[in-house]
């Protein structure tokens, strides 16, 4: 049944051997040394501080949606850094390898990366940025904010939530491991069939890519079930559909997309793995396989995935703009309809990713028009944000800057997106760096919104604001980097530069490539200030403490509980009366956050099972990648056994007595007294 492999295989070690460690590659050795030093530093620091117990109890085994959200975001930021380093390496290679006379270093013909290494880097860059950076950051934000916005104690399934996190984390770990053991896919983050088939990708790279995505997408699917159920079933009394905050609405639409589209990706990758492991013929060109079927299935997921990440970004902008405009969002109902419409139409557009296939005019026309239809609700959103600012009192705090930056990116991305939706134009720029610039434009929109979201909700989670001054520097350097990298990239697209080139045949492109590299330097400065912002903010946290309503003009439910949010979210579940409940209460003077009496709270108990399941899935992925069948079988059985054991656990929750809640709330109250406006949720700054 199993396929014939190039290279050795043994029953005990599978394809694994010492020669799979790329110790001859100086770049990898450098990265390895860096990872070892960093890892040792972290382990040392935790040991020195004696925090292992704390880490285990409070974080690794937690089922608290806020902590899980924070870990998701942390994971996303770490992977964002990794993806950024990949981008830096690619830009440098293209700059160094322009023209037939470009010098070669480190065994490369031109530049410093041989083709396979370069190909792995861009494949890893795409996979990481989309699946392991942007997605976790947004899932993290949804995790933190949605239960608070609907007035729930936690997610509908706190245990499942932790499982989702650890699956995603282990997928990231697999991708990182591929740096030091074996290689990563060279066939792009999309995985072009039949390039991903065994004859054309004989190494383990594609397997790493495949199983990492597979594991993380199980995590994302579980997360989407959880968020939908939370929104449908866990709303506080009075939180009707017409009062749901827009971010929650976009979370709902986005998770409907995830729920329905990730299975398609799973199937596409499973069929590919059958081809690679069992010699089936789904996507092979021979014996009846259809390679475009892979592309088709991949993009059935792939395009909804684009909206999966963009909708929460729209939601974040829709939260930030009203807060800093001191006004309700313009056209709430329209906004809801637009979000749902985007989710719906996202299911009819996937073919625009391969318009050049020769599928025929009728098919092209259908998908072209469907693609452009998405522009309608998106355009409506832009107008609604604009009219939210009409007759407003706009303050340009850091989150607002990010939101406006995202708006600007949406306008340019919309322009180029509409170009790509027209086949006649698409034929000329498909697979060129123009497309790369377009979707980076859109992903930067998402990143801008996410940065805005992190700045916006940071005080809610940690109880103090991020530093304004460095925050602005981060924003402006990021903006500058974006312009300097992507304007030349759009231009290069019109010069006929294809994507994924490790050797650039045309020296005339060099000046623009150098300009892009300069843009990367600006991003490096943004990164520096980002780290500085976090450092400064933590250092000066006492001075930046905030009350319940950190921005003074916030509108939704999450600003009605303490900052930082206690682990039980709300001492007593709030009753909702209006669309923007907190704005409503502020207007009517109900800003006292003290309930008349406290009640018992049921909470889920922490558990190590999700971490164990995560670790076992890592082993499962590892076994599959290296074709170590005993490990694969053992970890699979282990996962099922862990699930059964967990199902037999009857002690999964506990009760906090009303008296204890009251005691904790009173303590928090005393602490909050020191903060301007603290406990009562009074605005902490005077509004002109």
């Amino acid at each position, binding site marked *: 049944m199993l396929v014939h492999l*190039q290279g050795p295989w043994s029953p005990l070690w599978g394809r694994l051997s010492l020669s799979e460690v790329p110790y001859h590659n100086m770049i990898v050795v450098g990265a390895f040394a860096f990872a070892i030093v960093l890892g040792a530093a972290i382990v040392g620091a935790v040991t020195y501080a004696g925090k292992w117990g704390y880490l285990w109890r409070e974080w690794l085994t937690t089922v608290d949606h806020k902590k899980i959200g924070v870990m998701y975001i942390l994971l996303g930021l770490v992977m964002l850094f990794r993806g950024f380093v990949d981008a830096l390496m690619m830009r440098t290679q293209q700059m160094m390898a322009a023209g037939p006379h470009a010098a070669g270093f480190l065994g490369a*013909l031109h530049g410093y990366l*041989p083709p*396979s290494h370069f*190909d792995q880097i861009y494949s890893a860059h795409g996979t990481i940025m989309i699946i392991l950076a942007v997605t976790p950051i947004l899932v993290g934000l949804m995790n933190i904010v949605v239960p608070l916005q609907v007035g729930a104690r936690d997610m509908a399934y706190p245990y499942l939530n932790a499982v989702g996190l650890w699956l995603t984390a282990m997928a990231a770990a697999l991708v990182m491991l591929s740096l030091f053991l074996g290689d990563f896919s060279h066939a792009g983050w999309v995985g072009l069939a*039949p*390039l991903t088939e065994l*004859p*054309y*990708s004989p*190494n383990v790279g594609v397997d790493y890519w495949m199983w990492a995505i597979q594991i993380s997408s199980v995590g994302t699917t579980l997360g989407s079930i959880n968020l939908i159920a939370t929104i449908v079933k866990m709303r506080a009394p009075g939180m009707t559909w017409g009062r749901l905050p827009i971010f929650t609405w976009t979370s709902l639409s986005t998770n409907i997309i995830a729920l329905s589209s990730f299975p398609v990706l799973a199937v596409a990758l499973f069929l590919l793995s059958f081809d690679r492991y069992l010699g089936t013929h789904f996507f092979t*060109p*021979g*014996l*009846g396989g259809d*390679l475009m079927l892979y592309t088709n299935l991949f993009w059935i997921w792939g395009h909804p995935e684009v909206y999966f990440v963009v909708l929460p970004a729209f939601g974040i902008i829709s939260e930030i703009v009203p807060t800093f405009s*001191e*006004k309700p969002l*313009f*056209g709430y109902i329209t906004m809801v309809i637009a979000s749902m419409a985007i989710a719906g139409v996202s299911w009819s557009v996937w073919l625009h990713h*391969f318009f*050049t296939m020769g599928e025929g*005019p009728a098919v*092209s*026309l259908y998908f*072209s028009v469907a693609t452009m*239809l998405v*522009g309608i609700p998106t355009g*409506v959103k832009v*107008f*609604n944000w*604009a*009219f939210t*600012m009409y007759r407003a009192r*706009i303050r*340009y705090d850091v989150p607002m800057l990010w939101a406006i930056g995202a708006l600007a990116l949406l*306008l340019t991305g*919309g*322009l180029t997106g509409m*170009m790509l939706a*027209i*086949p*006649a*134009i*698409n*034929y000329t720029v*498909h*697979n060129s760096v123009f497309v790369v610039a377009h979707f980076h434009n859109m992903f930067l929109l998402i990143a801008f919104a996410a940065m805005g979201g992190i700045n916006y909700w940071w005080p809610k989670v940690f109880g103090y604001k991020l530093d304004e001054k460095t925050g602005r520097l981060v924003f402006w350097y990021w903006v500058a980097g974006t312009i300097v990298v992507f304007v030349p990239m759009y*231009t290069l697209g*019109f*010069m*006929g530069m*294809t*994507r*994924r*080139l490790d050797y650039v045949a*045309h020296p*005339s*492109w060099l000046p623009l490539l150098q300009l892009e590299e300069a843009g990367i330097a600006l991003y490096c400065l943004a990164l520096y200030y980002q780290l500085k912002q976090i450092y400064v903010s933590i250092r000066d946290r006492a001075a930046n403490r905030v009350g319940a309503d950190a921005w003074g003009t916030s509108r939704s439910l999450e600003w009605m509980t303490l900052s930082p949010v206690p682990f039980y979210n709300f001492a007593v579940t709030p009753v909702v009366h209006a669309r923007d409940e907190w704005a409503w209460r502020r207007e009517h003077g109900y800003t006292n956050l003290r309930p008349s009496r406290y009640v018992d709270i049921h909470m889920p108990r922490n558990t190590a099972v999700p971490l164990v399941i995560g670790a076992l899935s890592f082993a499962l992925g590892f076994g599959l990648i290296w074709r170590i069948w005993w490990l694969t079988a053992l970890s699979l059985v282990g996962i099922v056994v862990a699930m059964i054991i967990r199902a037999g656990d009857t002690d999964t929750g506990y009760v906090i007595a009303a008296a204890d809640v009251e005691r904790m709330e009173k303590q928090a109250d005393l602490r909050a007294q020191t903060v301007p406006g603290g406990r009562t949720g009074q605005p902490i700054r005077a*509004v002109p």
Partner: protein
Amino acid sequence: MVRNNLWRAARALAAASVLLLSGCVRKGGLVLLDPKGPIAAAELHFTILDVVIMLGIIVPTAILVIWFMWHYRATNRKARYDGRWDHSYGIEVVVWGIPILVVAVLSYFSYKGIFEVDPYNPRILDKPHVTAATARAGAPASRPVDVNVITTDWQWLFVYPKLHIASVDKLVVPVNTPVRFRLTSATVDNAFMIPQLVGQIEIMPGMRTKQALLASHLGTYRGFSAEMSGPGFAWMQFHADVVSAAHFRKWAAMVAKSPDHMTDGAFDAFAQPTFNLHEKSRYFSQVQPGLFRYVIHQVHMGKVFTTPLGAGELMTAHMTRVQ
């Protein structure tokens, strides 16, 4: 006339604005704005049309947003504040209406474009101004030049089936003559593109796609694969020479004298993974009839040209081993 002038002005404006962005770029670098054939020109036409229409909505929106941002800043005490205003039927109708209108217009142009540059049957080639130019050149559309394109890892083989010749990484076509391509791959996906002449079409193993082009200016143009196909992908470049009819006949006669023949067996040797650095051309004569079908058939039967382990890391070593 007015429409034409407006059109030309818009086109110049668009070209100038993009050129401004790349002031340091050598002249002629923006190949997509410099079409040398009716198909590429049509594609540019739709690009400019789309950009102009989209800018017509994006620029006013941007100005509106910027004005709101400036006027309604919190520190501007003169601006009117209405903290409850969140709805207006009139505005909502407009904000839905404008995008719907724009999308409707663009959909119409998309529909037109799809047929005008359809790779299988580009209607632009039937337009009077194009057929007239073709007729002047003495090459009626009914007698186009046929080229069969076969990609391997990582080379281009251009087969002229009627002439029984083939060339590697060099495409030569006569000016003002329709050229009909049939394309397939012996290994993985590629995409055929000559930016100044014609947009992309996918080349898929086991399948046959079509493309058509007509070059209206003499010259050498750059062609390449636009779809990642493995470690040798960046070197999958070729020259497309557009020459006079007489020159084309001379070239074909020259190639027909090549001592290298292209049989089915020779193809299997040729198709072994090869990095063809810097577009070195080779010629084959006496190409076996039905080579194109042979390649497709072999792929259907499960033939693969396996990429050796480590081909990408040890590129130079791999090249010396093959050559």
